């Protein structure tokens, strides 16, 4: 133990003597480790906020989307439609579904007096408030009668409030949405920033009937959203909806569906798969960066061994065994690599703090990548240091002492 400390001291001494060279050698490791930890922190941040925003939408959601994704890819045309009949059929027959609403989503231009903004317009029934998990800040959400009357009313998110009204009270004001007048009847509490920096407050909610009749002239929906009675029942509820819709839409046994059902669990799984791939890609880039850094370390250690041949000769003449010299140089390369790793982590923490503060990206530094980065830099120091260290250890003391 004492000898190890002594070796670490010698290593620091040697590295300090060539500060610039040591730093440049470390740079490979610093960049490698830094990039990996920073990317993983972005990945972890993204994952957390994706999951957060999906869960934030309200629990136990099932999404029914028209058309079969494979059919669409092949034929490209003839998309099946989801209509009010489908909604009613599910409402009537499903036992595991609590709330259901058709949804039309589009991007529109909203304006008030001379100001305008481009929010996402979500059209739903009055159940939308529950399904999208929204809280009313002021005013109220549209009611069942607003939906059945196709009233021109709108509930707006905080970004829309800010862009159109500034400090004014928007309740009761008339805004224009694609040229149509809508009366603002409520505002929503802020939901913050979403996964990829998307603004979750840049939304306007209107009754789905209004959207169909007055804005787009549609008899169908983008999507139907349903909520299962509990998290455990979500898969069964999805199956129930599937069989109801198959029956209702007259799809025979063995035929492909002309709609697609996804639930939150599946989406979370899909996200986890994507993050998994992301992690593998990062690991690939990381291993290349660290390999390059490791070769840099090996290179400089070989130079160091040559430069210090005489020192090695002296140490051996005085009684250092091959193993002592081996350990000395091995410790030096490990110290070099681990310090590089530590700097890399600090660099990543810094970058991730900057990203968090000044961009929309959310980052999250977790213990795992730090531990992995540190152990990897130790292994790299060991792996790429062993060849130079063995070369040093094998030097013949007589020749080494003669070395100029």
């Amino acid at each position, binding site marked *: 133990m004492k*000898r190890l400390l*002594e070796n670490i001291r010698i290593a620091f*001494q*040697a590295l300090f*003597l060539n500060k610039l060279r040591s730093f440049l050698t470390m740079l490979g490791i610093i960049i490698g480790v830094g990039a990996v930890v920073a990317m993983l922190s972005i990945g972890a941040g993204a994952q957390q906020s994706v999951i957060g925003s999906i869960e934030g939408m309200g629990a136990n959601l099932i999404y029914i989307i028209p058309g079969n994704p494979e059919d669409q890819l092949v034929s490209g045309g003839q998309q099946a439609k989801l209509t009010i009949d489908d909604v009613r059929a599910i409402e009537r027959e499903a036992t595991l579904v609590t709330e259901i609403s058709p949804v039309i989503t589009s991007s529109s231009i909203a304006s008030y007096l001379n100001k305008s903004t481009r929010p996402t317009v979500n059209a739903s029934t009055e159940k939308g408030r529950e399904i999208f998990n929204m809280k009313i800040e002021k005013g109220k959400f549209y009611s069942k009668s607003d939906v059945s009357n196709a009233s021109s009313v709108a509930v707006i998110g905080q970004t829309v409030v800010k862009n159109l009204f500034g400090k004014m009270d928007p309740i009761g004001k008339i805004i224009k949405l694609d040229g149509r007048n809508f009366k603002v009847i409520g505002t929503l509490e802020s939901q913050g920033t979403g996964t990829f920096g998307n603004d979750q407050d840049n939304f306007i909610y209107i009754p789905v009937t209004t959207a169909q009749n007055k804005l787009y002239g549609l008899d169908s929906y983008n999507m139907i959203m349903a909520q299962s009675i509990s998290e455990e029942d979500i898969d069964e509820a999805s199956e129930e909806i599937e069989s109801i819709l198959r029956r209702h839409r007259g799809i025979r046994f063995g035929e492909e569906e002309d709609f697609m059902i996804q639930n939150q669990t599946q989406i979370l799984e899909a996200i986890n798969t994507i993050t998994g791939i992301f992690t593998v890609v990062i690991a690939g880039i990381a291993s290349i960066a660290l390999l390059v850094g490791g070769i840099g370390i090996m290179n400089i250690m070989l130079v160091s061994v040559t430069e210090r041949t*005489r*020192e090695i*000769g*002296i*140490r*051996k*003449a*005085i*009684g*250092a*065994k*091959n*193993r*002592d010299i081996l350990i000395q140089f091995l410790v030096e390369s490990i110290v070099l690599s681990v310090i590089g790793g530590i700097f890399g982590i600090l660099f990543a923490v810094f970058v991730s703090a900057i990203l968090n503060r000044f961009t929309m990206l959310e980052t999250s530094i977790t213990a795992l990548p730090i531990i992995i980065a540190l152990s990897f830099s130790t292994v790299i120091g060991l792996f790429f240091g062993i060849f130079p260290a063995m070369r040093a250890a094998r030097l013949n*003391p*007589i020749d080494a*002492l003669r070395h100029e």
Partner: protein
Amino acid sequence: MLENNSDTIIKTIDITKTYRIGSIKVNALRGIDLEIARGQFVAIMGPSGSGKSTLMNIIGCLDTPTSGQYFLNSIDISKLNDNELAGIRNKEVGFVFQTFNLLSRTNIYGNVELPMIYSKDRVPNKKKKILEAIESVGLSDWIKHRPSELSGGEKQRVAIARALVNGPSIILADEPTGNLDSRTGEEIMHIFQKLNEQGKTIILVTHELDIAKHTHRIIYLRDGIIHGQEEVKNQLSAEKILMDMPRLEDRLVEKHTV
């Protein structure tokens, strides 16, 4: 086995050493029989190419003979492997080189400590022993300094302290005065003579007869064999020579006298 005479510290029996340089064989040593008693001060002399460096490397356990046997302090060295040799060097041999061979980045204390770092056993009173060794060569005020701050003579004294610190059986000095002016060289010889008086066995490799005459016995080497030996009748006393020697002006810079 060696017929053990406890007063014999070095005994070689028909040592040869053959190098191969490409396809050419070089017989550096061609049968050396040598015996050195404990407490002796011996000089090995010979022209370059005589094999004296090779002999010194073998005596210092840096190398093993091609054939023959070598006993150091009754240990058969001839058959040891690299690591065992390193252990013997550490414990039994103190080296003093012509070019000092100090670690330039390490201070005086660290340089003298070096053999103890590689000792197999824990050294009790380590610090005290190091300080004593430095004291014995008169450099106590310099322990925190680096070798580059010292004069040649001082560097050589640090090397001697380093050679002493593990209490070796022999001190092996290879041209220790070769890089020093005559007065400083004489000062170094004075240290060796004092150490010898305290009972240390010292083997000195030199090509200067004046230096060799400070010892008890001179062994002449030529073409890889012992060409002759002589007991030194009128051993030179470094102390006396130093008293007669005019002090050079630049000696004033050096604070320490022996």
